[in-house]
C-alpha cells in the first residue's frame, strides 16, 4: 500500500538563464511501514525531494500524494494542518529551541495543536522515556550531547503520532556511535511502531539500516534497490524490475 506517491515531480529554482532544475520529473512510490533512504551527490535533489514530500515547499509541476491526498495544490492552512498531524521532521542540526528544555521542545507540536497540558505531559513523558531521556527532561539543548539532542528531536517528531517521519541528514552532525544509535532508533520507528521513515543521507553506514535505497543524480532517480531479497514482497518487486529491463 503506497503511503507516498510522487508523479512527474519537478522543481525549478530561479528563472531564465539562471534557472536550476533541482528535480526533473521524478516518479516514486513508497509503501507504508518501510525505512527508505535517499542518497546522491551534492546537488542531486535529495533534500528538495524530501521538502516537497513534506509539504515544506511547493513543486513547479507534478504531484505529491500523501495517503492518496494531493498535497501539492492544497491551501496553506490545510497543508499546515496535514503536516502537523501526519508528519514528523528530523533535521541535521536538530533544530531544537535553545531556551526550552527537552520536555518543552518535545511538547511544542502538541501545544500548537491545542492539546490540553495534562494530556500533552503524558505523551511527552512517554516519548522521552522511549528515547531514553527520562532523566534529561529538564535539560536545555546546550546541556545535552548531539546524540541526545537528536533523540529529543525524534521524541518531538513522534508526539503528534505521525504516519510519516522525514529525516534530512539525521546523523550528519553526530559521531559514529551516536549515528548508529539514531539510525537504530529510526529503524525502531518502523519495526516497533509501524511508521514510514524517509531519510536523506550521504552516509552508507546509515543507509544500510534502510529497507530500500534510492539514488538520485541531477534531479532524477538513477537507481532504486531493495536491501532484502528474502522478503517475499521484495522478491516480487525485484522480479518485476528485472522483467522490465
Amino acid at each position, binding site marked *: 500500500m503506497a503511503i507516498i506517491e510522487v508523479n512527474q515531480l519537478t522543481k525549478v529554482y530561479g528563472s531564465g538563464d539562471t534557472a536550476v532544475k533541482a528535480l526533473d520529473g521524478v516518479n516514486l512510490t513508497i509503501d507504508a511501514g518501510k525505512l527508505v533512504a535517499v542518497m546522491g551527490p551534492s546537488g542531486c535533489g535529495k533534500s528538495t525531494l524530501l521538502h516537497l514530500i513534506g509539504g515544506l515547499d511547493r513543486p513547479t509541476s507534478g504531484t505529491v500524494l500523501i495517503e492518496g491526498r494531493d498535497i501539492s495544490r492544497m491551501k496553506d492552512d490545510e497543508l499546515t494542518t496535514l503536516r502537523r498531524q501526519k508528519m514528523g521532521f528530523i533535521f541535521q542540526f536538530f533544530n531544537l529551541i535553545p531556551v526550552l528544555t527537552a520536555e518543552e521542545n518535545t511538547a511544542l507540536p502538541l501545544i500548537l495543536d491545542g492539546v490540553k497540558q495534562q494530556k500533552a505531559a503524558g505523551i511527552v513523558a512517554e516519548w522521552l522515556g522511549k528515547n531514553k531521556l527520562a532523566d534529561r527532561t529538564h535539560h536545555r539543548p546546550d546541556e545535552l550531547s548531539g546524540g541526545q539532542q537528536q533523540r529529543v528531536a525524534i521524541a518531538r517528531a513522534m508526539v503528534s503520532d505521525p504516519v510519516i517521519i522525514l529525516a534530512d541528514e539525521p546523523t550528519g552532525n553526530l559521531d559514529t556511535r551516536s549515528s548508529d544509535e539514531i539510525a537504530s532508533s529510526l529503524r525502531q520507528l518502523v519495526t516497533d511502531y509501524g511508521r514510514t521513515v524517509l531519510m536523506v543521507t550521504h552516509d*552508507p*553506514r546509515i543507509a544500510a539500516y534502510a529497507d530500500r535505497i534510492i539514488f538520485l543524480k541531477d534531479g532524477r532517480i538513477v537507481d532504486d*534497490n531493495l*536491501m*532484502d*531479497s528474502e522478503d517475499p514482497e521484495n522478491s516480487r518487486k525485484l522480479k518485476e524490475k528485472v522483467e522490465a529491463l
Partner: protein
Amino acid sequence: MTVRHTLLGLLANQPRYGYELRAAFTALAGGRENWEVTPAQIYTTLNRMLRSGLIQADDAPSSSSERQFFSITPQGITELKQWLESGDHSNPVQDTFYLKMMVSRDLPFADPARLISVQRSGLYRELHRVTRQRGQLDPSSDLARILLLDKAIMHLEADLRWLDMIEGRLAEINRQPAPEPELRPRGRPPRNMNNN
C-alpha cells in the same frame, strides 16, 4: 590454508571428531551466515593433514562409538605455531571488480556505468545484511563477533567510496590508452638467409 590451520588450532587442546570440528569452526568463524564450510571440505582437509602427519586418528574410545576422533601431533603443533606467528597477507591489489571494469573497456556490449551500479547495489545489500546482523548481537557476550562485523562494515564503506571515485573519473580513464601487454621475444631468432 586458513581452514586447515584453524582446525589445527581447534585440535590443539583436545581431540575432536569430524562433525564437532565443522560446528566448532563455523561458530569460531562467525556463524553459518558468514562462513559456510561443507562436510566434504572438512573431511578432505582432515585427510590431507593426516597424510602430512599434522594430525593422527585416535582409536575409538569404545567399540560402539562410530565417531572418528582426531588429535594433533607435535608436528601439527609446530605448524600451528608457525601459522600464528606469520603476518596476514590479504591482497587488495588483486580485485575482481577492477578486472571486470578493465575487460569491459573493449567490449561493445558492456556498460561500465551499469557495472558500477550493479556493484554498488551488491555492496549496499551486503552492508545491510551485516548491519542487521550486528544490531541483533549483544555487546556483553558477542563482542568478538561484533568486531568482525565492524571490520566488514569498514571495508564495505571503503569499497563504496572507491566505487564513487571510479564513477567520477570514468570518462577520463576511457580517454587514456589501455595498458599495453609486455611481449618479450622468445625462442630462437628467425633464420637469416645469409647466416645458415
